[in-house]
Every structure is written in C-alpha cells, then in structure tokens.
C-alpha cells in the first residue's frame, strides 16, 4: 500500500480526507452494543459520475461488534448484493487506498497500517490486513479511493466483511472467524445534469446634440445628431460645438467607441473644398461571446 500512495493522486486523497471529515460531522454513531447486530449499512460516493478516476466510496454502519480486534477487512464491489453478479464493468480496485477511523481511531489515512491485498482485484475484491488488529470503536465509517469507477450508470454494491485473522500471503482473502458481515449496501453511479441558459447580446449606439459644456469647454456653435456646425470662423476666437454619444450593451468584455475622419491624409482632415469634415464614429463590442 505504500507503493499505492504514489499511485493515488493527491487530489484523490484530499477528496477522501475531506469527505471523511464531512462524515465526521454528519454521521455520529454513539450506540455501543454488547452483542453485534448490524442495524444500518450505507455506501455512498461523493461524485457519482461513471468512469471517473479515483472515486471515493464511503462505508458507514451501526451495530457492528466492538469487542474483538478486526485484523482483516474484505471489501467487494459487485453488480448484485453480497458480491454476486461479478464486478461492475470498468470499476477497478487494482489500486486502492483506505482511510477513516473505523480501523484506526483517526480520521486520516490508514494505508500504512492496513496494507491491501489485491490478489482478487479482478473480481472486485480487496482485503486490508493488520496483524495487530484494531477493536472498532464508535467511529463507524471508512472510505476507499480506488482506481476507476464503474463505466455505466448502475447500482454498485459494496459488501464489507470483517475477520479476526489476517489473510495468508497474497490469497486475496481474510482468514479466521467472521466478526461482522457480510453486510452489503449500494450506491448508484449517475451522469451529472447540465443546466444551460443563454443570455442574448444587447447593443444600442446613439449620437445626439450636446447641451452645455463638454469636458469644460462651453459651446458657441450648434450640433445635431449628424452634424456639427461651427459657423463662421475668425482669427480672434475658437468655434466650439459638441455631440453626445451613448452606448448600451451587455457585452461582458467591455466596449470601445472609435472616432476617425474620412480624410486620407493628416493635415487635410478639415479641408476647404466643401468647408466641412466627415468624422466617423464606430462603436464596437470586442470579443462578444454567445
């Protein structure tokens, strides 16, 4: 399992740790039974999407025995309850990581103390061994993060059995007496739903006469929406008139209003041929996205 640590992406481990933290808060089993009788079994995944890598399956239960040390725990994923029906297509436990306080007393990774035997991974079964063992307490949950989720939308059955002896060698099985189980519960893989909506672009651009001063400069001439008449020029004053521009849009990435003239050469913009200039205004919504 130490080797598996490097196989398991940090993101997967963080998700596992986080999900277990959530369970610490949400799932508080306080009942301690003198006689084991499992009364609740829950298997769930935080991300139910099919075929994702390193899904986290969480197991929680109540009523399990709390007197004898668990030295081996068998986890099996199958198409039907109790390990029947074969392994779900696409699901892989060829690499797997165990975390959670059920077998360790802390809500942290217990990979190092419960190495996995994945000999029977092809059938969806993995066992976790610890020769010293651990007597389960009130923390009723653990999680496994494994290589790949089932590839189809389906019910995936998770079956857990605990034993009082470790498995022998790479048998893929536990040994000794069953302490709890086999207990089985299911989660369901499911694609996410995409909710979509479109906000259509809006755009309007207006040019009008301007009233009052413009940028601190008072007007002494007149302007319309398409004309600015500076009147008769003389050498003793500056003729001034202005227009108002209004742009309205829901362009998410901003806008520009450009101004240019139709003259071809600098210094010839305000020509005397007709005594007028023809500036052009262009409002653009750059990189508008739909």
């Amino acid at each position, binding site marked *: 399992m130490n080797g598996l640590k490097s196989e398991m992406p940090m993101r997967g481990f963080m998700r596992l740790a986080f999900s277990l933290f959530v369970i610490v808060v949400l799932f508080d089993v306080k009942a301690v039974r003198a006689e084991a009788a499992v009364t609740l079994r829950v298997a769930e995944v935080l991300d139910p999407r099919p075929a994702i890598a390193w899904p986290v399956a969480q197991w929680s239960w109540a009523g399990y025995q709390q007197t004898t040390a668990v030295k081996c725990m068998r986890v099996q994923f199958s198409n039907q309850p109790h390990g029947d029906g074969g392994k779900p297509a696409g699901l892989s436990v060829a690499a797997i990581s165990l975390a959670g306080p059920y077998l360790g007393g802390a809500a942290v990774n217990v990979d190092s103390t419960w190495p996995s035997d994945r000999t029977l991974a092809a059938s969806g079964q993995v066992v976790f061994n610890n020769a010293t063992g651990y007597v389960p307490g009130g923390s009723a949950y653990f999680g496994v993060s494994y290589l790949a989720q089932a590839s189809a939308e389906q019910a995936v059955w998770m079956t857990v059995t605990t034993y009082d002896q470790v498995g022998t060698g790479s048998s893929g099985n536990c040994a000794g007496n069953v302490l709890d189980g086999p207990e089985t519960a299911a989660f369901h893989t499911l694609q996410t*739903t995409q909710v979509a909506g479109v*906000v259509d672009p809006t755009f309007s651009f207006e040019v009008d006469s301007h009233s009052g001063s413009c940028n601190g400069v008072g007007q002494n001439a007149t302007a319309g929406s398409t004309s600015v008449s500076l009147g008769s020029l003389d050498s003793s004053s500056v003729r001034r008139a202005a227009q108002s521009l209004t742009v309205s849009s829901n362009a998410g990435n901003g806008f520009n209003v450009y101004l240019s003239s139709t003259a071809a050469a600098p210094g010839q913009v305000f020509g005397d041929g007709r005594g007028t200039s023809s500036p052009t205004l262009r409002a653009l919504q750059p990189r508008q996205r739909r």
Partner: protein
Amino acid sequence: MLKVAVKERLIAADAIYMTTAHKKIGLKARALVSVLAVLGGTMAFGSAASAAPTSWSVATSDPAPGAATTHTFTWNGFQTTTAARCIAVKYSNNADGTGYPTGLSVGTGAPGGTYLSGSYTRDITNAGTTGQMVFNNASATPQTAGAKDITWSVATEPTTAAGQTVYVTVTAYDTAGTGSSGNCGGAALESVVAGYATTPRTTVTAVVDGTLTFTVAPHSGTCNGIGQTGTSSPTTVDLGHLSTTATNFAAQDLSVTSNAGNGFNVYMKSTATTANQVFADSAGHYIADATGTFASPAAITPGTAAFGYTALGTGVALTPGTYAKVPTSSGNDSVLTGAAGVGSGTGCVGFGATSSATTPAGAYSAQIVYRAVPLY
C-alpha cells in the same frame, strides 16, 4: 403398595401420557420399586391405596435450554380421601430420580394450580443439591376428583445446549414439611414420574437482498407550481434564452426504488466550488444564486439576475413557486428523502433563471450532481 408410573415422552417438553409405557424407563422404575421395597415398607401409600392416578404429565412453557419458564404438572385419578399437605417435586436426569440436570434452577415463589387447596409455600432448600423442592400447606384439605394441575415458575431450564430429557417425580404427602427442611413430613400418599425434554430453539434465517434503482427523466407539466418554459432530458436542462421580464424554468423527474429499511436520501449539489458562481459562462461571468435557501426558499424576481431550484417530492416540499440556491460542491440539499421504512420515492427538481440588464451575454451552465443514498 408403592406405585411408580412412567411413560414414553412423545414430544419435546410436553406431556407424558398413560397409554404407552416406556419399556426402558419402566424397567428403571421397576428397579426403583424393588430398591424401595427392600429399604422398607414405609413407602407404601397407606390409605390412598384405593386411588391410583390414571394420567399425568408435566409441560414446560419454553423448552429452550436455559430459558426461564413455567412448569405445569397435570394429573387425574389421584386419591381424594386424604389432604395432600406437602407435595415434593424432584427433578432428575433419570427416571429413578438420580442425576441433577446441569444448569437447572427451580426458581422461587408460590405454586399455583387447581390441585392446590389453599396457599402453598415453596421450600427449595434442597433444590440446588438433590433437585427436590416441596410445596407446603399445613391446612390443606382433601382434593376433589378430576384432572387438576400444579404450576410453578422455573428460573432456568437445564442448560445442556443440545437439550435433554428431564424427569419430574411428584409425590404427595399427608403432612407438611417442617421449617426449611426441603422435605415433606408424614407419609407419602402417591407418586408419579413424568418427564419433558428441553430442545434448542430453531433459528430460521433468510436473506432479502437489497435493491436499488435510481433514474432521472424529463418532467412534464408544472413542477411545484411552476410551469416549464424550457426542456429537459435525463442529463440536461435547457432553460433557453433568458430574459429580464420572466424566469425561465425546466424540470427533471427523480425516482428511487429500493428496499432500504432505514430510509433514503437523494442529495443534490453543483460541481462549482464557490457560491454565486454556480451558473457560469466560459468567460468567467456568473448569474448569482437565488436568495432563497432550502430551509427558506423565496421567489425569483424577473430582471434581478438569479439562478435557483425548486423541488417537490417524497419527503420534500419547498413552498410552491419558490426557489433555493443550488449548493456548491461542498454542500448537499436533500431533494428526496425517506424516513425509516420508506425506501422508495419520486419527485421533481426544477431549475429557474432570470437575467438583468447588466448580465453579460453568454451561454451559462451549471453541472448538477444527484446522489441516491439508501440506508440499508
């Protein structure tokens, strides 16, 4: 004459009938007669000789090894001329009264039954060693004829796991025992040996396999009082082109079928990690979350950009026409829920959105995660 009668045990823990003599036990009984005869004639039953029990049996209310139970001794044909002021009840492994059944504890308390006239007390002084207890009533009167019974509690049946035959010798005496002697006084009137068998309980087991199906489908018609303007499929909800004058809405149906005995939940959340960024376009623009929550849903006002959901189904009913914000990836809202005993349920979940005049143009989307969690 000493009269010892035994019979064959027909069924576990129950009656012994007079009709079929058990040969082997009968031999033992006859041997006991011989021994007692050699020891002396004091065991002859004197004046009661004219009466002879015609049937007798002992039954236990629970034959399981180690069980607390009530024993009922029934007989008929007993003598009716002399009062039985002491009744000795002796448990044994053998018909001749030898052997003490392992684990047997006769219990305490007064006996009852129709054979007893007046109040009898129980003396268990010798019960733990010889298996005999006696019931005393110094003022008892002669009993009338007919089938009569005596009942008494037993704290613990013999504990032999495989079960065993237990013999019960009942002897009536004409004189109550003295103090806590554990024995009767006077002369024996009549005696019979009955028996019963302890039998391990049978455990009948069977497994009902778990079941689970979870489906998402398009919804038709209104959902929680809101008409649909968009369309949906099992994996998409298309709200269409949003506006500032209406709230676009479309819904899906959720269905969970299971035999989970402890109930179920269907949780819903988005894949977004940050609130108010659930409904986003690819350029990083967002339509804010609806102001309502699952606990306190509220209407969406057209023209005030918002994205939310409503739900109506098994165990869940938001106020009709209202919305809640869609949880981020670290949250969960239960959009269907079944209490213990409710493993299946259906409902609709609908999504609504509206834009404002300043909502950036774009194609907005949210990824919704449904999780069915049955509690087996």
